[in-house]
């Protein structure tokens, strides 16, 4: 029986590099990378600020346990970047002040 996933029984397609937007800037992902891995590979180590002290956070546990790596994916907030597989055309947003403006200004 083919494995069932929430998106149906379709295997993750690809084998092709994909392009994602991160606060308006383009980042590239290799097939099979998670969103978190693609960000780290692109040199981005933080994409969230903590509620109280506003401290930067990115990947910590790497396996979906710590919730440090939350990011907005295609408009859906609070997704764990370490679990979401990168897909072509995906829109990642940090909600960090100044970020989006920075990226647009470039």
């Amino acid at each position, binding site marked *: *029986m083919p*494995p*069932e*996933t*929430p*998106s*149906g029984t379709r*295997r*993750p397609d*690809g*084998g092709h590099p994909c392009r994602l937007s991160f606060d308006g800037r383009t980042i590239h992902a*290799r*097939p*099979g*990378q*998670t969103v*978190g*891995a*693609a960000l*780290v*590979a692109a040199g981005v*180590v*933080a994409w969230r600020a*903590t*509620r*109280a*002290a506003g*401290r*930067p*956070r*990115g*990947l*910590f*546990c*790497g*396996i*979906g*346990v*710590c*919730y*440090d790596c*939350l990011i907005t*994916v*295609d408009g*859906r907030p609070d*997704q*764990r970047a*370490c*679990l*979401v*597989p990168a*897909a072509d055309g*995906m829109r990642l947003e940090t909600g960090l002040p100044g970020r989006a403006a920075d990226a647009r200004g470039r």
Partner: protein
Amino acid sequence: MRAAGDPVADVAVVGAGPAGLAAAAEAAAAGLTVVLVDAGERPGGQYWRHGPHDDGPPGGHGRRTFAALRAGLTRTRTRTLFGHQVWLVQRDADRFTLHLRPAHDTVGPGTRALTARSLILCPGASDRQLPVPGWDLPGVMAAGGVQALLKGSGTLAGRRAVVAGTGPFLLPVATGLAAAGAEIVMVCEANPLRGWLRDPGGALREPAKAVEGAGYAALLARHAIPYRTRTAVTEIRGEDRVRSVRIAPLGRDGRPRGGVRIEVDADLVALGWGFTPSLELPLMVGARTRVDTDGSLVAVVDDRQRAGVPGVYLAGEATGVGGAALAVREGRLSGLAAAADLGRAVDEGRVRRLQRAVRRGRRFATALHTACPVPPGWTDWLEASTIVCRCEEVTYHDLCHAARDLGARDPRTLKMLARPGMGMCQGRVCGFATAQVAAALTGRSPQAGDLLALARRPLAAPVALSEIAALDETAANEEN
């Protein structure tokens, strides 16, 4: 045999790591209808994690076992659900209902619920952490997370790494990073670790482990990785990310020796202090717990992996941290036990051989735990401003204040007054450390109750209120 896809399976296996795969394979081979669920995208769990385009994990360790287990699932037409997280397990008279949600919301809702007559829980573990000043800086990661990034996504978490904590697991992390091109500034092992790496003969009762130890020693040498024992990272420095790391030798009492410190530049710090078993599902179905030799809270099972609750079996790290090979043996045993309890004929000779193999594996795990304790004086490296609970940003000072000035004598009260373990991760990351700090502040050693106070979770994953509300509707429909 019932048709595949029968609404009530004989057994639901949660977790498709080494333990769960073995459990599912045995149960299916014995003629049970099996459904296997995992939050991950594909089978393998932590040990056999691999990318979507690899047919298995890199390297030879148990690769053949993985291939055989996976082939077994296909042969027995076992129903598998990946990308589904079990967030609630309910029991009605003779069956269990597992409530599922997608591991992330970028895909459809998937399957919402499953029912089964018996339940084999193999949820594994996560990296155990001890807070250290600066561990909340980006660039500091759990050692297993660094490994997962490498195995699952082929991605290096940094270029110049310090790997620190305790236990043999630091070795594959360091050698894996080095083989992928990172520079390893140092591996800091807090314990003397005599008798394992230095003297693989000490592991002779588990010959495969001795070979593995010798193999890592050779790899460390080949990549010229400095490996220091009785050494710990006592401070991580940087503004918005890791820039440097302070390293200190530890005395015999496990406390940093004053004065002697070196500082090295790094952009990645991988921290691992053993593993914390994932107990939310076992606790939810009523499993009992005990403190294991590594100080972790683990679920109690009998010599057939039964949890003492009818129809519930547990295998793998949740019953005591012991690594992948032991997880496979326990998984097989649990699958056979479930089959026997449902009236299938099983080879009792095989059951006994597996029981012996499990006992052997446990003895080896106990020896490792004894060689790799958490340094008793670790709280000495905490500063008042050090974050202990990353989610709620609770500092060591907050905990001291609650304990000393507000009279919080136990973790439950500490949790109410200072909020450690009350954030998104529900204490999965800080639970062990908070229990240790609470005990240290009140001058005792942590007991099972301390750990339990931070391990109980009403739900195994955060869910929307609408999903909880939907439970009543499902129940109502079933009654009609």
